[in-house]
């Protein structure tokens, strides 16, 4: 309980500080103006979402290899949390795009691959609702999760491999890319804050999965 409270307090502290810094510490971006401040929320959420999907992939691989329930719990928990972060990315992206590009959405590589990633993980969760038997559900969804993860590197590299409407990478983008030093620091602080939030949500979701397994076990005991 104390660990959860500490994690919660640290996360709240980090996200509030990150939000404050993105409005009051970073300088105004010359081309886009104040709207660019959405970047610290949008891109940091995208990174945390992709980390959650990488954790899901790890859980799926380990389940297929070891067939231990806890890896299935990790997989489904990380998929749900990653989906929450990607939903935020898909909401904040068009809100940022509209004043800057003059359009809400375009089917370019980055936007389309992100939307496909979102649909793939929704399918992963839907698939789990269709299979009653726990071991079969865990195995089939782990195999589907491994397949779904193929899209995650595509999302990351899409703006490096193809010229897209979405801006080219400003972080780890190679020569010519880069951020003003204060923007860079605040961006990485925002990434840290969003990762703390991701860990908090993931641990809560994992506890929920353990509880639902306890319910399932008790139901079987009551029926026996």
């Amino acid at each position: 309980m104390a660990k959860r409270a500490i994690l919660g307090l640290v996360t709240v502290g980090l996200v509030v500080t990150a939000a404050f810094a993105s409005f009051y510490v970073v300088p105004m971006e010359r081309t886009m103006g104040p709207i660019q401040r959405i970047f610290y929320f949008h891109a940091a959420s995208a990174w945390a979402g992709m980390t959650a999907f990488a954790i899901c992939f790890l859980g799926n691989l380990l389940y297929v290899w070891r067939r231990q329930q806890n890896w299935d719990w990790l997989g489904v928990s990380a998929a749900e949390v990653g989906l929450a972060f990607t939903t935020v990315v898909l909401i904040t992206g068009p809100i940022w795009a509209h004043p800057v590009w003059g359009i809400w959405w375009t089917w370019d590589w980055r936007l389309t691959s992100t939307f496909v990633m979102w649909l793939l993980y929704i399918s992963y969760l839907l698939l789990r609702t269709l299979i009653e038997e726990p071991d079969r559900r865990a195995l089939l969804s782990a195999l589907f999760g491994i397949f779904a993860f193929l899209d995650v590197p595509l999302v990351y590299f899409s703006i490096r491999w193809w010229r897209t409407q979405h801006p080219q990478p400003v972080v780890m983008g190679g020569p010519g890319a880069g951020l003003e030093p204060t923007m860079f620091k605040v961006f990485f602080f925002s990434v840290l804050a969003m990762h703390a939030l991701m860990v908090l949500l993931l641990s809560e979701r994992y506890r929920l999965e353990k509880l639902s397994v306890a319910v399932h076990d008790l139901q079987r005991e009551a029926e026996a």
Partner: protein
Amino acid sequence: MKNFDSIFAAYVLGWAVFFGFYLSLGKRASSLRAEIEQLKNSVNRGK
């Protein structure tokens, strides 16, 4: 501030997703806890 409405909407909607998800976790956990109590009682009655 220019584009204040868009910035405000992005932050409010984004945080609404996180809060909504967190609240749904809490709601699902409390309903599972209630179910566990109920099942424990019925298992104990059956013994």
